[in-house]
């Protein structure tokens, strides 16, 4: 139980950091300091952090737009996130791509493309490569929303993993909406968990706003995948507590959901649990919050002093083989 407590505390701090980072992006967006969209994970941090937390070095993770917590837990430095949102040339995406489209592929952290579902098979490919190279015991995790389960790419990717018996953990965050589209217009099964058997993969359900539950289920799923159990499909029930992006007031979210147990803010739920278990007191929580805020503010301050991309320094070449570049950008 000590072990679980440690994990919980670590996870909580990850959630907190993600929340504060997201809040900062929201405020930078309102201040017109960010170009384009801002996409937050508010309400989904418990699930997301649990994904990142049980992955090891050598594992691979393909997060999506609401995975700030999972990214940090997987090891993303706060400054990578800030640099990407602000388009800093010093960030991993160098101003070429932005916001949630970030990663460090050689570190197992895959940068999402926007097209939903597309990253699942990419994770499969990494795991197939591990098999070719004789690397054992690694796991790949991919996130998807319940809306993303309607894509052909989701289906092909999960089926491919099942055929290859890959250690894929595919986590579906069912937050009841895809942008404005409710589940009734997205799928017709009683429970997304019912999909598992049709792929021949293991299925897990979890209340996505209960950090303890997320940690238990995700640990189990990751362990099973790591130990040869093949693909694991995790279905989490939760609610997005923000707009689709920061431009969206999410007025379409049915208020009935907010009254549900799973509609409660996972961060609050975790805090209450911490206090109840006396794993932390109010003062400690405040202290952690200040630390996280400081970390985020510091990163933002650094990045805001960094140069912006200089188009005349750009080589404008899409190929690694420079000599094969066509003559357009001469």
């Amino acid at each position, binding site marked *: 139980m000590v072990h679980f407590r440690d994990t919980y505390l670590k996870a909580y701090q990850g959630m907190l950091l993600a929340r504060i980072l997201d809040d900062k992006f929201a405020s930078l967006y309102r201040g017109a300091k960010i170009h384009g969209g801002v996409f937050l994970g508010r309400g989904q941090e418990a699930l997301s952090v649990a994904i990142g937390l049980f992955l090891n070095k050598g594992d691979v993770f393909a997060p999506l737009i609401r995975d700030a917590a999972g990214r940090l837990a997987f090891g993303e430095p706060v400054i990578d996130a800030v640099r990407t949102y602000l*388009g800093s040339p010093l960030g991993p995406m160098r101003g070429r791509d932005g916001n949630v489209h970030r990663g460090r592929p050689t570190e197992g952290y895959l940068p999402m493309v926007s097209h939903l579902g597309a990253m699942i098979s990419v994770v499969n490919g990494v795991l197939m490569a591990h098999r070719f190279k004789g690397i054992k015991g690694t796991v790949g995790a991919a996130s998807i929303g319940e809306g993303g389960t*309607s894509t052909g790419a989701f289906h092909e990717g999960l089926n491919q993993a099942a055929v290859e018996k890959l250690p894929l953990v595919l986590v579906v965050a069912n937050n009841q909406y895809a942008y404005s589209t409710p589940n009734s217009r997205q799928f017709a099964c009683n429970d997304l968990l019912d999909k598992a058997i049709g792929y021949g993969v293991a299925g897990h359900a979890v209340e996505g706003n209960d950090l303890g539950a997320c940690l238990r289920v995700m640990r189990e799923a990751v362990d099973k995948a790591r130990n040869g159990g093949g693909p694991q499909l995790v279905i989490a029930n939760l609610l997005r507590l923000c707009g689709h992006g920061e431009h969206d007031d999410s007025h379409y979210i049915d208020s009935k959901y907010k009254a549900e147990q799973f509609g409660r803010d996972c961060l609050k739920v975790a805090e209450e649990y911490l206090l109840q278990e006396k794993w932390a007191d109010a003062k400690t929580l405040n202290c952690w919050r200040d630390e996280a805020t400081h970390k985020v503010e510091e990163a933002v301050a650094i990045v805001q002093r960094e140069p912006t*991309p200089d188009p005349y320094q*750009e080589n404008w070449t899409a190929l690694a083989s420079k000599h094969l570049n066509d003559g*357009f950008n001469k």
Partner: protein
Amino acid sequence: MSITYLEAIREAQAKALADDPRVFIYGQDVGKFGGAFKATKNLAQEFPGRVIDAPISEDAIIGAAIGAAIEGMRPIIEMQFADFSTVAFNQIVNNAAALFWRTNVPCPITVRLPSGGTSGGGPYHSQSLEALYAHYPGLVVMTPATVEDAYSMLLEAVAIDDPVIFCEHKYLYYHLKAERLPTEAMPVGKARIARPGRDMTIVAYSAMVHEALAVAEELATEGTEVEVVDLRTIKPLDTDTVMASVARTGRLLCVGEAFPWGGVTAEVIARVASEGFGLLDAPPQRLNAKDTPVPYHPNLWAVHRPTARSIAAAARNLIRL
């Protein structure tokens, strides 16, 4: 009263729904929510049951449109961004576009593609895919540059018996305004002289028309009279109007926002060079986006695509050739 390019698109859809019971709209979040850009705002409320939210299944969305069209309906499909049409690519080019040629049964679907770059859009929310669709036989590809054309061409897209790829430019959505909606329009497939001039022809389409017009304005102060041709539809491509303009000016610069290899500018130049070689007093020139994905940061984005500045430079260069 003034109306934006985006509102014109909404109004055209409202009119199509009102006038023709065969019309319906299908796409992600197009229903009660009114679409990611609000191009279908209130339409679900005004036309109950005819504006339908789709799952995130672009391939099946187009497939269903084809089936409905076979049954005589006139579906309008909204892709949330043009970029996501790449997952519906097969249905568009191999099923919709080939149907009439294979079976003699028309496939009147309209696919709306919110296209083109905006600052901060990045590689996957900025693409201009007109060339992909124009390359395949069987599609009409429209690229309206004005509020009036956005309105009247969308109505015509719905009326045409063939699948139409309607490339509406996101940058123009809010930036472009007109006093009123048009009551008449040029025929589909005809280019428009957006500004007459005798020294040089700039052929453009969609958002680049406005960059070209700005250049024409600027170069006029330097004594160069630029004629701007707005292609309006890039397939079919109105070679006659382009050629007639080049016959007047002797000089051709073709500008597009898409990737540089192939595409509209290559097609225009190939046509003029092969069919109107003698009209040219100087080598025809072109300007496109750079040969990389569309960058996220505004600094990079502004240089990636042609702008009035880079077009003016190319135009000044051409006038000296």
